[in-house]
């Protein structure tokens, strides 16, 4: 069967017909010339399907918040063709059995590549290394390891993990949060936290861990990935490390590119997230770093929570916000529309680089003949009004409710098959 994405502009360049056969791009033909099953994309922009290195799918354990299936649906609607499912499930994804279960659920849903992330330590306990090798060699072929939600704060354990994963070209993705400096922390530590009487989460608690980890990675010659950078100081540390030749990559979430701590003054827990929303200066530094490549990728940290975990007082609320269905719009608003990133650069940040960091060979390909046909077709002129009740995610904790984001994901093609057509699951 041949699929033709008609009249589409790869990376916003000249219009072509992308011809897809057997899951692979076979030809870029002049627009309107190719025959087959037509997906109308006249004037729209084609990008390689997005790859999320940081997604919480909540299954197993919290199927009331999200399942692999609903999370996959949200991902596809957001233009993603691959997500990395974080390990902080219940039970924790710290054994081959659990990662294979998540991987199999992803296969069954069949909407995106679901790549399980393995825990670094048993039960995210930060004390004993989990069986990283078993997870790497399981059917799930885990390459990214993270205790996300918790920091691997023990320096020796972090060093060992960085070393150990070299055997199977894995990478440790660190949630950089010095635990003692952030006990019971509720928001960014700032003048505002002092005024609101909320326990502060100081920037130094993130920056100090990143500084330690880049030096450890340099010392042992390992790859390090830093999750959700949130401060200007973290950017400086990563920039310094990259200049030294340290093999470090870094991600930023959409919400840290657009939201600031001022929102916490509402005490509305939809804005409670870890790491916390920071200042406008931090947001500026993060955008700049994403533009200049200091930060390699956008990763959503999609964190679904059931209504009751957000419909309460601030301190009792869970941390985290949805991201899959709004990531592209936020990237458009903060990076593409203001001219900080070209389409090709955006494709790097949301597809090629995360695929490379995660070791996913079938994703992040350039849109050329021979590539696996993972394609996001977007309308740069369209807009997307965020209505949490209409999200595919099982949860509703989007901080963008009522907001209109520029750009719209129109079609998503996963391994040659349309998963989303005209903004709806097909």
């Amino acid at each position, binding site marked *: 069967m041949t699929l033709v994405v008609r009249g589409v502009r790869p990376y916003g360049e000249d219009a072509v017909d992308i011809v897809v056969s057997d899951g692979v791009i076979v030809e870029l033909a002049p627009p309107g010339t190719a025959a087959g099953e037509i997906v109308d994309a006249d004037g729209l922009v084609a990008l390689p399907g997005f790859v999320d290195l940081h997604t919480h799918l909540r299954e197993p354990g919290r199927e009331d918040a999200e399942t692999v299936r609903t999370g996959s649906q949200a991902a596809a609607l957001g233009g993603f063709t691959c997500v990395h499912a974080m390990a902080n499930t219940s039970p924790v994804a710290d054994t081959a059995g659990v990662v294979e279960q998540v991987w199999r659920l992803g296969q069954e849903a069949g909407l995106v590549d679901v790549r399980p992330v393995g825990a670094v330590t048993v039960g995210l306990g930060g004390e004993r290394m989990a069986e990283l090798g078993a997870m790497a060699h399981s059917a799930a072929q885990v390459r990214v390891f993270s205790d996300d939600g918790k920091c691997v704060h023990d320096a020796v354990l972090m060093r060992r993990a960085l070393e150990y994963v070299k055997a199977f070209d894995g990478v440790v993705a660190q949630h950089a949060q010095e635990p003692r400096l952030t006990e019971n922390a509720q928001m960014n530590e700032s003048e505002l936290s002092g005024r609101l009487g*909320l326990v502060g989460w100081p920037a130094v608690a993130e920056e100090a861990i990143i500084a330690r980890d880049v030096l450890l990675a340099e010392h042992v010659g390992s790859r390090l990935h830093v999750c959700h950078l949130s401060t200007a100081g973290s950017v400086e540390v990563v920039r310094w490390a990259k200049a030294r030749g340290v093999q470090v990559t870094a991600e930023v979430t959409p919400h840290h590119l657009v939201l600031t701590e001022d929102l916490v003054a509402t005490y509305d827990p939809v804005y409670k997230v870890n790491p916390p929303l920071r200042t406008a200066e931090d947001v500026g530094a993060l955008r700049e770093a994403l533009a200049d490549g200091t930060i390699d990728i956008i990763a959503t940290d999609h964190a679904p929570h059931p209504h009751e975990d957000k419909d309460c*007082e*601030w301190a009792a609320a869970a941390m985290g916000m949805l991201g899959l269905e709004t990531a592209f719009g936020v990237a458009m608003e903060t990076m593409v529309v203001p001219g900080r990133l070209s389409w090709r650069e955006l494709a790097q940040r949301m597809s090629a680089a995360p695929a490379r960091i995660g070791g996913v060979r079938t994703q992040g390909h350039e849109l050329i003949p021979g590539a696996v046909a993972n394609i996001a077709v977007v309308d740069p002129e369209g807009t997307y009004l965020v209505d949490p009740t209409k999200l595919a995610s099982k949860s509703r904790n989007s901080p963008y409710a009522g907001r209109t984001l520029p750009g719209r994901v129109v079609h998503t093609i996963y391994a040659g098959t349309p998963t989303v057509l005209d903004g709806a699951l097909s």
Partner: protein
Amino acid sequence: MKHLLSTADLSREEAVLILDTAAELAAVTDRSVKKLPTLRGRTVVNLFFEDSTRTRISFELAAKRLSADVINFAAKGSSVSKGESLKDTALTLEAMGADAVVIRHGSSGAPHRLANSDWIQGSVINAGDGTHEHPTQALLDAFTLRRHLRSGAGDLSGIRVAIVGDILHSRVARSNVLLLKTLGAEVTVVAPPTLMPYGVESWPCHTSYSIDDVLPDVDAIMMLRVQAERMQAAYFPSSLEYSRMFGLDSARVARLPEHAIVMHPGPMNRGMEISADVADSPRSVMVEQVTNGVSVRMAVMYLLLGGMQEEI
């Protein structure tokens, strides 16, 4: 004004109105029948998620003196301690027709959530939320200051007040700094650097690490309770050192201007932030603060629930 959540929400005029109303209502307390019919038929709920006998009974007495029906809903021994959420508790109170909810909660911002949610329709009065604010305490402090230093009228222009102690964790300090500034007073917060909030330099007050530096230049000194667990968390080395460096004893009181008053929101740690002889000395107005608390809380409920001035 529907709710009282933060003293930041009060204009100078509103704050003075509350103090003036409290002064008029205080006269009622001196009558043999200490009761007004103003809030007859209205229901006030004291919703206390934290233990606080003195604040709760102060609100209770205030509501009763205005003839309101009062329900006390304490976390201990109720469904709250069994894990019922703030929302469910609020929905229950709403269903029972509460006209005002006086809330004390350990989580900063809980009264804001209550007021800005669709859980309840009535007025919300913040009776202390986490380490955020305690507006009626600040109002009763302002009332006490005005009585002693401004003959009980107008605002607090030019009055110099030092607030000494655990500023970082103090909702009393936050509410007072904001309210006293609004009323024209000049405030200095005094604490060891570890007990100063991050960003305190942008607060509308002065800061000092030395109680001795500020003593000669204040009209009132307000001592805050310092909890022993702060020592465990290494905010200061020992209670003895804290007491030596920041405690108010009679030697330090002797260096205050003669007219200056000593305040404390209670409960006190005698021998820690304040010595027993100072606490019991004529300079101390702590007992009067408690009395004034009832009047001020009467005024707040009266104004929020729409009582008419002529009825007093």
